[in-house]
């Protein structure tokens, strides 16, 4: 990796040009630029060599500087405050946790920011909490009504997804330019209500298309400032991948089933007469069976997640920017399995460690490639900031996995 910068001078910072004090001979950057440059901007080519016809591309790594120890303290203190305030502080805790992740994510030396107003999130929490209480009460008094509550809630989900994506994107900021989401409410209803409704009638064959539609709704409607993200993904790729994974899954499940059946009968044969030993062996065997099944299901989930994330980023372009994502299903599976084990054995105390670890892996596998630069984006005018109607309803920020 070359760190050659055009206009480099011995005694000055190669970026901002300020004098360098007390740095070794290897250093060419002043302190504030050092943070910006380390590992991020890697010019593939020296700009002075690039002719007008040669595309001059730069690859920016995304760097994640969060640390598990630091985040643990933030998380545990905020959790404690949430509990002693009977959940009211949860909105502030959520904003702080999010901000920790955003502000530790660096692209070209600048951080992302999450600007949501905790009071808005508190309103959202109260509404969602009210819904949960209504559900719990109907559950107690009449299961028939609680089924109706679930039905009404599922009619409400596309609206929540739509609001949540708008809220989340508008409050995500990089270089003082907000992201935005321009998807329509009707598309959300098609994607999050119509397609899942069609699953049984199409014998599940619509599943890959549904997965595609969700990604298209997100990636195809994202924008940064006024620059809209173009999503070139095709349903055919989803069908091909799902078909491949299905064949693999079915064959492995058959294999696991055969091994389990054979193993169980072998144990019964071997230990006939020793009921205690037999029962113990059967339990141990069943435990191993569930472990194998859990690992396998996790592998499939993470493999699909990795493929989908990689595919969607690669098929996206934001103005002159394109993306590279190099997640591996096996690595994600290992992270997930060890995270679950760590969380279980630490009684939840390793939740922050697990979150930091997974986020680091995902972000550090994402790269931004451009033949222009990151200075060219225009901020969108934000008329909705003054419009009370929009602001008062945009307070949902559900966790929607990208």
């Amino acid at each position, binding site marked *: 990796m070359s760190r050659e910068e055009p206009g480099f001078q011995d005694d000055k910072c190669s970026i901002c040009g*300020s004098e360098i004090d007390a740095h070794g001979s290897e250093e060419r950057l002043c302190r504030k630029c050092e*943070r910006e440059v380390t590992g991020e901007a890697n010019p593939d080519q020296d700009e002075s060599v690039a002719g007008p016809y040669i595309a001059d591309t730069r690859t920016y790594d995304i760097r994640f500087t969060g640390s598990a120890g630091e985040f643990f303290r*933030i998380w545990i*203190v905020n959790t404690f405050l949430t509990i002693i305030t009977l959940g009211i502080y949860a909105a502030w805790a959520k904003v702080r946790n999010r*901000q920790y992740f955003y502000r530790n994510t660096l692209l070209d030396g*600048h951080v992302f920011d999450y600007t949501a107003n905790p009071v808005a999130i508190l309103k959202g929490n109260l509404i969602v909490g009210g819904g949960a209480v209504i559900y719990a009460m109907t559950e107690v008094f009449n299961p028939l009504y609680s089924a109706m509550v679930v039905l009404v809630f599922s009619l409400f989900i596309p609206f929540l997804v739509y609001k949540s994506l708008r809220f989340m994107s508008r409050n995500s900021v990089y*270089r003082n330019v907000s992201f935005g989401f321009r998807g329509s409410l009707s598309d959300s209803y098609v994607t999050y209500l119509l397609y899942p409704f069609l699953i049984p009638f199409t014998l599940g064959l619509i599943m890959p298309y549904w997965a595609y539609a969700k990604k298209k709704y997100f990636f195809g409607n994202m924008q940064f400032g006024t620059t809209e993200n173009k999503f070139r993904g095709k349903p055919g790729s989803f069908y091909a991948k799902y078909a491949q994974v299905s064949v693999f899954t079915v064959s492995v499940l058959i294999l696991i089933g055969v091994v389990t059946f054979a193993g169980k009968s072998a144990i019964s044969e071997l230990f006939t007469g020793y009921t205690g030993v037999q*029962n113990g062996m059967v339990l141990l065997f069943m435990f191993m069976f569930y472990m194998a099944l859990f690992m396998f299901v996790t592998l499939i989930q993470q493999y699909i997640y990795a493929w989908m994330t990689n595919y969607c980023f690669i098929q996206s372009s934001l103005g002159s920017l394109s993306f590279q994502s190099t997640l591996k299903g096996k690595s994600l599976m290992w992270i997930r399995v060890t995270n679950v084990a760590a969380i279980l054995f630490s009684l939840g105390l390793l*939740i922050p460690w697990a979150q930091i670890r997974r986020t680091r892996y995902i972000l550090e596998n994402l790269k931004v490639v451009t033949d222009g630069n990151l200075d060219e984006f225009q901020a969108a005018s934000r008329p909705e900031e003054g419009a009370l109607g929009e602001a008062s309803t945009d307070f949902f920020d559900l966790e929607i996995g990208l």
Partner: protein
Amino acid sequence: MIRFDANYFDGKTSISRTVIFTLYGKKAEIRGVDTGFVFTVPLVDCEISPAIGNTPRLIRLPGGAMCEAVDLDAVAALEELKGEQKILRLVHFIEGRWKAALVSIAGIIIFAWFFVVFGIPAIAEKAAFAVSADILNEVSNQTLEVLENRFLKPSELDQSRIDKLRRDFEEVLADVCRDEQCRVEFRKSPVVGPNAFALPSGLIIVTDELVEASENERELIGILLHEAAHIKERHGLRGIIQNTGVFIMVSVFVGDVASITSIAASLPTLLAQAGYSREFEREADEYAVRYFHQKGWDTESYREILVRITEKMTRYPGDSLLSSHPITEERVEDILKLEEALAGG
């Protein structure tokens, strides 16, 4: 004087400019390093976003521009001078300390324990007794309908035996259920096995299997009293409310219901719920023992049928690890202890 380097973003484009931020009295000067622009803004109009960890600080200027600074000490000094956001600054200070993390862990454990052991049961009791009899009846009828369809068949006991049992049972129930409308029904249920259960409306269902497993009528009266206590204390309803409460509390702690962490969350939830149900069983046993004591009966028959039921219920080999044997043993011990205490006192 406070002075630090910053990256300046005008809020209209994503262009990054290096600036020097200098505070002169109550005004902040922003001076471009290589672009030569300079302007001043009043400090009171600058909005310093709360500090998180060791991340760069963001200062929003009037007019939509923003400065990003990595000189954390300088921005902290600026913040101090401005004197706002006192609570979040305190939170940030606390977040930086390991001792505070330890205190938080202890605080969470104490608070969660207190809430699970005292808070939730107290709220659930209030809520359960606020429910009207009409609603209890409706809930019970619906539950009964489901049970009748799936697990219960008409009783195959002799009609004369049913009549006799019902007369004797109703005598006991008239004694204990003063405000509630307790009544008994008999059903055959190979699925449920030797057992009895109470619906919130006051209906107690006794299975043929239980009657057949009993050796004398007093054993059955013990079980009947146990179920009557569940009805009088509204244990069924309280149990549902308590379990919901624990679920909500654990969800708040873990933060989200939908991800891996829900696996970790299910264990403490199950433990708390098991604790509640054991507590209700203990209360119901106590009620039965007190009645026996009042009548001058000893509890041997009640203890024996508890043990016998438990033995008959463990049919599957896998059950031996998860069976309720130890719980029954504990219950029997508690019954003996209470009986001795009542006899002594």
